């Protein structure tokens, strides 16, 4: 049995706690804008909304893999070409991510597998290493949430420094790392001891959320993997290819879609500039275009399939994990109502 260390944080002290964190860290937290929740860097504890339900509009990935990132700048001089590595600026970063959901915490574990493989991505690596995770479990499930099927929520056992559960007038705080422990101990005046009742209440809330999520069915993951392998040429993909607009929104709101393009942005002097990487989408026809114009995934069904297969098939072979966390953002966002849960059910019923 795992021994967990817990504390209680009265809600009256949350702002004070966040205020103290702001003295030492860049703080990223859920903020409400036009009724929607965004993870943003905050300057004031008042901005933080820890009462939100469900998912933020955008996943946390942009704080680890920004939508546009300068890899290096270059300067062509008479002496030669000088290159300035921009990852070095991330060495001294000190951030804390507050109010991040278990599904999104799980997504970071998937990104870790991708970016810390045979090669190590220093930009992602430094941001990740220098960011503490202060998670917040869900008190209710939203439509399209299916983390309970992906093993990424509503409860989570690791991947956080602290994990909060909203218990009404206080938070149950689970300590998940030595760094998390330090955060609590350095601010011990704000914390109270947690009761057995608190733990029981957390378990009750999370199992309620889980059973709410499971009202909508989703296939067993092994069955889904096998069904996808078997049905790559099935007719159903044409149907989705017909309606998909290839807009790429599902990729951009997905916490685990990390494909990017790399290009140079020269300055007006044409003697200096920067190399940047920007988010890209496997739904774009340009994504598989090679020199000479040949496009490998020219037909839309092949591009719809690419994303689905990457999530539930290829990534299992590649990193040993399904690269979907069941956050439901792609379903919520798709302008033509393509629903990956329905796709999963459909392919397993063939």
């Amino acid at each position: 049995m795992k021994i967990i260390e817990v504390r209680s944080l009265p809600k009256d002290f949350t702002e004070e706690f966040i205020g103290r964190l702001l003295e030492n860290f860049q703080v990223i937290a859920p903020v409400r804008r036009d009724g929607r929740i965004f993870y943003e860097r905050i300057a004031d504890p008042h901005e933080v909304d820890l009462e939100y339900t469900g998912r933020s509009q955008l996943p946390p990935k942009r704080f680890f893999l920004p939508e546009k990132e300068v890899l290096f700048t270059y300067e062509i001089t008479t002496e030669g070409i000088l290159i300035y590595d921009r990852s070095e600026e991330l060495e001294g970063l000190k951030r804390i991510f507050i109010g991040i959901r278990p599904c999104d915490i799980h997504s970071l574990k998937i990104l870790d597998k991708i970016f810390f493989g045979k090669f190590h991505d220093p930009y992602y690596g430094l941001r990740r290493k220098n960011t503490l995770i202060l998670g917040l479990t869900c008190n209710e499930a939203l439509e399209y949430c299916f983390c309970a099927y992906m093993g990424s929520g509503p409860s989570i056992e690791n991947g956080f420094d602290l994990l909060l559960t909203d218990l009404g007038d206080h938070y149950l705080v689970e300590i998940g790392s030595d760094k998390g422990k330090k955060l609590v101990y350095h601010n011990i005046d704000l914390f109270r001891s947690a009761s057995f009742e608190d733990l029981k209440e957390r378990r009750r809330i999370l199992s309620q959320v889980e059973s709410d999520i499971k009202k909508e069915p989703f296939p067993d993951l092994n069955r889904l993997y096998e069904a996808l392998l078997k049905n790559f040429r099935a007719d159903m993909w044409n149907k989705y290819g017909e309606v998909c607009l290839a807009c790429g929104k599902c990729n951009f709101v997905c916490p685990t879609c990390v494909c990017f393009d790399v290009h140079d942005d020269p300055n007006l002097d044409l003697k200096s500039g920067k190399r940047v990487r920007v988010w890209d989408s496997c739904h774009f026809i340009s994504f598989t275009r090679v020199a000479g114009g040949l496009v490998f995934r020219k037909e839309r069904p092949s591009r719809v399939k690419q994303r689905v297969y990457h999530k539930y098939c290829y990534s299992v072979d590649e990193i040993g994990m399904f690269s979907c966390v069941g956050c439901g953002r792609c379903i919520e966002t798709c302008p033509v109502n393509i629903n990956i849960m329905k796709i999963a059910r459909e392919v397993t019923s063939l």
Partner: protein
Amino acid sequence: MSNPYIPSIAIIQEVREETPDIRTFRLKLKEGEFTFTPGQFIELSVFGYGEAPFSVTSSPLDREFFEITVRKMGILTSALFKLGEGAMVGVRGPFGRGWPIEEMKGMNVLMIGGGIGIAPLKPVIEYILANRKEYGEVILLYGARTPSDIVYKRELEEWKNTIDVHLTVDRGDEKWKGRVGVVTVLFDEIEVDPKETYSIQCGPPIMMHFVTKKLVELGFGGDRIFLSLERLMKCGMGFCGHCTVSGRYVCKEGPVFSYSEIKNFIETAI
């Protein structure tokens, strides 16, 4: 830890014209030697224009310099063509898995190239020429669009002294006396024992599709057929996603794959 996105600076030592739109560039790293396995590729930076993948085409025994053969195709290659001797470019790599040159020792080697797809075969030929006794019969089948599109004309003449070279063009001209037709027509000029032969090929997907079909008909096993796949590898490290086929990263797990691997792909590779 060093940053794998930062290119090393290389100097263009020599530029040779192969065809009206194909040139070979000899590059020397400003610092250190360059080592690679035939079939591997580099990411070449032309600063201000970005980065693109190119096969290394020189002999793996040369460490002082290396070469790439480039067709002028888009923005980056057009910018590269404007650079001459002494100009500086960026180099990352080499990346990927090359040809099984060690495994092929003691066996016959059948090479099939289409168009500029002969480029990744050239370092194998160079390596075999330097270690001729270690390989059996060596055959090169090469198809180009027209006689003026044939690359490595000078080298082909030299290679003929040591290995069996067969050429064809899709469209001949008044001076062309050789074969006309796609590269598979050359199979009727050769005799191979599939049990004693490794085949390695690179060319357009359609060429590799038909060549592979032919090789299978001739009795080649899937682990004796090797192909180099072309995709747009942006990062070379399995991150950017552009080069995947059936969930496999061509940059990291390829670009060379055996047909045994490719035929198990659910997504069509060739």
